[in-house]
């Protein structure tokens, strides 16, 4: 098992394999839109996504600078995603709609499930592999590796792992790809590359 690439996205910077590749201007009002523009990709669905799904989409797009996903068949990539606060950002929007604005919005409600982001990734990449979303107390590299082992014991060749959070206090995305190939997973190195101490 081998980690082939890692990336982290914060409102301040984008980090790929432990190296800063972009600094995001501090006066930027919509930093995710700024990152989207900097990547030179055309995917209009991005603008309709909630912040959790946007972060996932940007994360995989950054990883694509390093990884050629076309080497995998459409059922060979597993998705293992997790966070602590579930779909808090969209939950709050929907909650405010019906408790304060006396309205309900289908486009806000559909994002009130955290696994919608894995659906957005599957749509973007046309992937049909196994996928799962967990709510965890905190980021746990061992947990992701354990889940990848389970998927590798079946028909999955690579696992896209991600910890993505969007709430009132923070927006952040950490993604990494584990391949079922000869190799050693250097946990400390990965944690260092991902700048994991920023996770709150």
């Amino acid at each position, binding site marked *: 098992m081998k980690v082939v690439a890692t990336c982290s996205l914060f409102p301040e910077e984008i980090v790929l394999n432990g190296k800063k590749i972009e600094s995001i201007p501090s006066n930027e009002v919509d930093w995710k839109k700024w990152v989207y523009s900097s990547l030179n990709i055309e995917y209009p669905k991005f603008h309709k996504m909630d912040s959790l799904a946007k972060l996932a989409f940007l994360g995989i797009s950054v990883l694509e600078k390093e990884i050629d996903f076309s080497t995998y068949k459409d*059922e060979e990539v597993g998705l293992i995603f997790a966070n602590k606060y579930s779909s808090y950002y969209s*939950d709050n929007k929907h909650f405010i709609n019906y408790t304060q604005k006396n309205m309900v919005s289908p486009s806000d*409600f*559909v994002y*009130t499930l955290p696994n919608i982001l894995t659906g957005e990734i599957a749509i973007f990449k046309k992937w049909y592999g196994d996928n799962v979303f967990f709510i965890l107390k905190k980021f746990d590299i061992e947990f992701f590796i354990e889940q990848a082992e389970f998927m590798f014991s079946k028909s999955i060749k690579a696992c896209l792992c991600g910890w993505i959070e969007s709430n009132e206090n923070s927006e952040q995305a950490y993604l990494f790809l584990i391949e079922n190939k000869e190799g050693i997973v250097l946990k400390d190195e990965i944690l260092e590359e991902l700048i994991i101490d920023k996770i709150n």
Partner: protein
Amino acid sequence: MGKSTSMDTSLKNVYITYGALVTPLGNTVDKNFSALKEGKSGIKKYTNSGFTNENWPLAKIEQISENRFDTLLRTSFIELNQKVSIATLTSSDTLVIVSTTKANIDVFPNDTFESGVTILKNELGIVNEPIIVSNACISGVVAINLAADYIRADKFKDVIVIGIDVVSDFVIHGFQSLYAISEEAAKPFDKERTGITLGEGVAIVILSSEKRNSAFHVKYLNGSSSNDANHISGPSRTGEGLVRSIQKTLERSHINKDQIDFISAHGTGTIYNDEMESIAFDRLELNTKSFNSLKGYFGHTLGAAGVIETIVCLLSMEHNLVFKSLGYTTLGTSKSLNLATDTSQTQVNTVLKTASGFGGGNASLILIKD
């Protein structure tokens, strides 16, 4: 969790038994079984339950008046404690996996997942940190599949899967905004179907590495999940994700589709979901198999649904009894299906359980009599 994973594990036996079931039809597995046999539905109309005071049908547990999530979870412990020893519950070889979409959503914007975990630790006495799967309506099936992974990897001896969700304004208002709620009790696969009926409940199954002292044993074979890769809230028009998930599950289970005796489908009662399922089963030539949806009894219980319906599969296997697809009278999908219109005795040795949901998710698993 320290033991290493053995890679060739797909043939290792995993036994599945039921622990507890609390639904509007009763607070034990036996009470639910009696109600199912009588064809009773847990669905009733509730005055002013809608966003603009509609009287939506719901499958609510009327004995619970407040603190719904915590109370429901605690209620399930009564039956669980009768069936599972304290030694097993509190063992370091036991893991709990919780399957839920919105957990204790009534406390939002506070942490909706915290109270359940605290109750599991303090009142059930579990020692390992529970794992929470939140994968929309496929959560229950995904959680059971994961439980088997843990058993086959020798990480735990027993994995307790708890599927739970409650009826809440949050969810009712949301589904109402999608025009997805039926004005009458849901009629899965029927010509007159107009949408879902929301429900609540908690269901507990236990997957184990050994036959425990349960009178009856069913083995879990294998399972999978697959996304439609099509749309986040609308089911695929081709049933692609469901087709792929069932194909993977059959392959991983090393069985032929002809061996399936019965299919416990998802069948929510919406026009598009049920149509999608009919297309998927038709593509796989599984549409002549005996088949039902249980949403007419329990409503759609979201994160609990896959676990509740798996318990009913276990009852079907134990008693060789296929429960009628409540609410169904006339075929309302473009592809034919062999829906159970009466509850009847038939040999049920091998069962396919499927689920589909928001985010384009699909999941399935296969159970076989031991």
